[in-house]
C-alpha cells in the first residue's frame, strides 16, 4: 500500500494504482477523454493532467501510478487552463457537426466542451475532408470525427483480436482505417460494433435504420411485427434515467404497440426454440455419436463471421441451429402468417437487438430467406430504439405494463439469460438434462458458467455422463479454447470439452455493440443481474416446458431436427476470406 494526498485529502491505495483511480476513492473526479475503463491507458489526449508538488511537469493521471508521499493537486486555475487548451486543440481538428451527428447529446467530447464552457474557437480550424465508410451496413466510420484516442483500435485488436482497424501513418496524418485504406466490408471486420460502443465521439456509430422503420410503420399495406432481444430489456432503461439492469420488458411491449407494431413478439421465444433444436443436436452428437464434438454455439453473428474468417477448420463443430432472431423471423412469415392468414410479403419483421452484427446476419446467406422472403427485414439496435421512443414522444417512465402477443411472445427463464455470457450454455444444459434423463433438474442454476471471467471451464454430470464445458466471451479468448480442441484432436487425446459457448462481446449480448454507451464491468454486472432476476422470477425456467413451444412443435414443426425444422431453423457455414481486397 502507498500513502499520498490528493487535494489535501489523504489516500491509501495499493501499489500501482493510477492517480486517476486513486482520486475516485476520495470522490475526486479527474476529466478524461481517451481513457476507457475496459482498456489500458493510451495517454493520448492529455486532458487528465494533474500537478504533483515538487515536480514542475504536469503528469497524466491515467497512466501515472501513485507513489509514496505524493502530494497531488487535480484542480486549480492553471490546470483548468491547460485542459481547456487541450480541448480547444482537439476542436481545431474536429468538425462542428454536433447537431447532425449520430452522437449528438451523447458524446464525451461534446460533454467536455460544455463542461469547460468552450464558446469560441481560438485556433485556426483544419478538418481534413474524408469520406464516410458505410460499407458494412452495420457501423459507419467517419474518420473526420476521430480524435485519435485509440480506443477503437485497442478494442478491435486486443479485446476482439479481429484487427480490422489500425492506426495508419503518424503525426498529423494519423488515421483509423483498415490496412491499405480499404472499406471495412472488405476487411476482417466482424461487425461486433465494439468500436462504436467505445468511441468517445461520432467517428464510429451504428448504421441508423430508424427512418426505414418509420416508413414501414406508416405504410398501410404493411403488417409490421417486432421482436425484442433478451439483453435489450435490461439496458434500454438507461436511456430514460433508470439504473442499468432495470427490467423494462413489459413497458417495452406496450411501447412497441404504441409505435404502431401490430404484433409484439419476444426473441426469447426464439431462444426457447433454439434450445429445443440445439440441445437435441447436442444429445444427438454426444449420446448417439452423430456429428462432431465439441458442439459450438452459433447464436452470435459476430462470432459466426469471426469463425468463418479465422477458424473455418471448426465448421463441423458448429451448431447448425440458427439464432433466436432468425428463428422468430422465419416463423413470423410462415407459422404466424398462416395462422393469421396474412400474406408473408406484407409482413415487415423488425427486430430490436443489442447488436450491430445482427444487421449483417439478416442477409448472411440464402438460408436467412427460409420463409421465401427475407426473414428479418430491419434490425434496430437498442440505441436506435431509444431514439425512436424519444421521437415518438412517449413517456417511457409512465407507460403501463402489457403482455407480448401469444404464440411467439411467451418465454422461459432459460431463454432470457441468453443475453449474458454462459446463458445459452445454461439454458441448453437444463433441456439436455431433461432429454437424457427424462427428468427436470432439481436445481436449474449452473453458477460455474456465469460471470465475467474471459474463459470459464467446468464440467457437469448428466446422468452417468460427465460433460465438459467451456464458455468464452470477448473474441480474443476464443483461440485458447479452440487450440485446446485442435491439440487434443491432433494427438488423439480425449476431448477437453464437449460443449463450447462463444459470444463475441465481453459479457455477452448485454455488453453488445449496439447497447447504450458507457459500458464497463459494473454496468455489465448490473445488466446481467437484471437477466438472472428475470429468470428467477419466471414460473417456467426450462425451454422444453414452454407450452407455446410445445404447441409450435405439435401444430407446425413436428419434432426438433425434423424436416421442417431443417428447412426453417437451420443453416450452413463456409470459410470466408479475411480480406476481400
Amino acid at each position, binding site marked *: 500500500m502507498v500513502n499520498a494526498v490528493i487535494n489535501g485529502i489523504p489516500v491509501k491505495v495499493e501499489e500501482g494504482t493510477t492517480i486517476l483511480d486513486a482520486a475516485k476513492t476520495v470522490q475526486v473526479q479527474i476529466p478524461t477523454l481517451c481513457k476507457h475503463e475496459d482498456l489500458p491507458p493510451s495517454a493520448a489526449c492529455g486532458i487528465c493532467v494533474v500537478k504533483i508538488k515538487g515536480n514542475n511537469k504536469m503528469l497524466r493521471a491515467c497512466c501515472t501510478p501513485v507513489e509514496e508521499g505524493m502530494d497531488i493537486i487535480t484542480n486549480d486555475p492553471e490546470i483548468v487552463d491547460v485542459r481547456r487548451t487541450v480541448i480547444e486543440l482537439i476542436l481545431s481538428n474536429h468538425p462542428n457537426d454536433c447537431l447532425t451527428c449520430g452522437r449528438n447529446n451523447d458524446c464525451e467530447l461534446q460533454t467536455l466542451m460544455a463542461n469547460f464552457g468552450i464558446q469560441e474557437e481560438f485556433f485556426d480550424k483544419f478538418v481534413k475532408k474524408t469520406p464516410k465508410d458505410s460499407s458494412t451496413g452495420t457501423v459507419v466510420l467517419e474518420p473526420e470525427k476521430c480524435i485519435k484516442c485509440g480506443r477503437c483500435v485497442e478494442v478491435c*485488436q486486443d479485446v476482439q483480436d479481429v*484487427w*480490422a*482497424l*489500425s*492506426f*495508419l*501513418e*503518424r503525426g498529423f496524418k494519423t488515421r483509423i482505417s*483498415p*490496412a*491499405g485504406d480499404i472499406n471495412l466490408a472488405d476487411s476482417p471486420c466482424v461487425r461486433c460494433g465494439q468500436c462504436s460502443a467505445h468511441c468517445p465521439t461520432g467517428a464510429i456509430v451504428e448504421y441508423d435504420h430508424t427512418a426505414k422503420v418509420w416508413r414501414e410503420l406508416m405504410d398501410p399495406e404493411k403488417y409490421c411485427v417486432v421482436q425484442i432481444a433478451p439483453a435489450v430489456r435490461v439496458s434500454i432503461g438507461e436511456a430514460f434515467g433508470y439504473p442499468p439492469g432495470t427490467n423494462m420488458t413489459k413497458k417495452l411491449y406496450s411501447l412497441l404497440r404504441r409505435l404502431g407494431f401490430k404484433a409484439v413478439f419476444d426473441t426469447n421465444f426464439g431462444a426457447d426454440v433454439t434450445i429445443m433444436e440445439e440441445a437435441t443436436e447436442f444429445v444427438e452428437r454426444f449420446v448417439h455419436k452423430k456429428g462432431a464434438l465439441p458442439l459450438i454455439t452459433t447464436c452470435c453473428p459476430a462470432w459466426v463471421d469471426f469463425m468463418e474468417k479465422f477458424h473455418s477448420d471448426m465448421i463441423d463443430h458448429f451448431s447448425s441451429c440458427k439464432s433466436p432472431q432468425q428463428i422468430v423471423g422465419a416463423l413470423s412469415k410462415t407459422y404466424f402468417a398462416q395462422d393469421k392468414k396474412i400474406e408473408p410479403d406484407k409482413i415487415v419483421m423488425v427486430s430490436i437487438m443489442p447488436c450491430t452484427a445482427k444487421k449483417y446476419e439478416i442477409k448472411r446467406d440464402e438460408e436467412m430467406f427460409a420463409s421465401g422472403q427475407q426473414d428479418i427485414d430491419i434490425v434496430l439496435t437498442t440505441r436506435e430504439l431509444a431514439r425512436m421512443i424519444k421521437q415518438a414522444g412517449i413517456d417511457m417512465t409512465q407507460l403501463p405494463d402489457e403482455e407480448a402477443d401469444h404464440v411467439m411472445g411467451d418465454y422461459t427463464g432459460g431463454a432470457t439469460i441468453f443475453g449474458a455470457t454462459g446463458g445459452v450454455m445454461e439454458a441448453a444444459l437444463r433441456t439436455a438434462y431433461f432429454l437424457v434423463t427424462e427428468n427436470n433438474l432439481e436445481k436449474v442454476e449452473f453458477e460455474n458458467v456465469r460471470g465475467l471471467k474471459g474463459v470459464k471451464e467446468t464440467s457437469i454430470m448428466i446422468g452417468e455422463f460427465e460433460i465438459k464445458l467451456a464458455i468464452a466471451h470477448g473474441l480474443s479468448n476464443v483461440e485458447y479454447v479452440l487450440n485446446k480442441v485442435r491439440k487434443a484432436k491432433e494427438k488423439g487425446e480425449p476431448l477437453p470439452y464437449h460443449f463450447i459457448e462463444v459470444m463475441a462481446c465481453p459479457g455477452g449480448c448485454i455488453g453488445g455493440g449496439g447497447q447504450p454507451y458507457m459500458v464497463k464491468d459494473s454496468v455489465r454486472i448490473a445488466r446481467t443481474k437484471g437477466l438472472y432476476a428475470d429468470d428467477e422470477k419466471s414460473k417456467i425456467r426450462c425451454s422444453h416446458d414452454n407450452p407455446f413451444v410445445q404447441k409450435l412443435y405439435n401444430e407446425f414443426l413436428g419434432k426438433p431436427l425434423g424436416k421442417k425444422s431443417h428447412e426453417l431453423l437451420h443453416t450452413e457455414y463456409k470459410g470466408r476470406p*479475411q*480480406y476481400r481486397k
Partner: protein
Amino acid sequence: MDREKLKADIKEIVEEWKTKEGNLIMILHKIENRYGYVPREVSFEISKLLDVPLARIYEVITFYNYFKLEPPGKHTVAVCMGTACYLKGGAELLSELEHILGVKEDETTKDGLFHLEIVRCLGCCGLAPVIKIDGKVFGELKKNDIIDILSHYTKQNGQMVSGVGSEVSGKP
C-alpha cells in the same frame, strides 16, 4: 510479377529473420530494397509466414516514410520547397507539375513514368527554384520550363507529350 517466384523470395527473406527480435521491420527493409516498394500481396505473405496481422504490417509501413506502398515511378521528380526555392516560386513549379502529371505529392503517374515528391533543400539555393529528376538538377526554372523538361523524359521512353497533362500521365 511471377507469383510463385515472389512467394519463394519472400519465404527466403522471412526465414532469415523469423527467429530474430524486431524481424518485421528488417524484412520490410529487404522487401523495399528488392522491389522498391512493399506490394500488398507481399504483405499478405509476410502476415501468413510471421503470423502477424496485416493491420500491424500496414501500421509499420505507413509509420515510416522509407516504406512505399506503390511502385515507384521510373523517374523521380523532386520539387524543392526549401526556404529559398519556396520564396522564388517552388510552389508554382509544384502546382504546374501536379497539373501536367495529374498526380499529387507522393503519387506516381498511371503509366508509371513519374513519381512526384517534395524535398527540403537540395543544397543549391543559388539556383532556386530547382527541381531534381533522378540525379539531375534543373535550376532557375520558370513555370513554362516544366513541360519541355518533362517531354525530354517522355520522348526518351518513346511517348508523346503535347503539353496536355493527361497525355503524359497516360490517362484518356
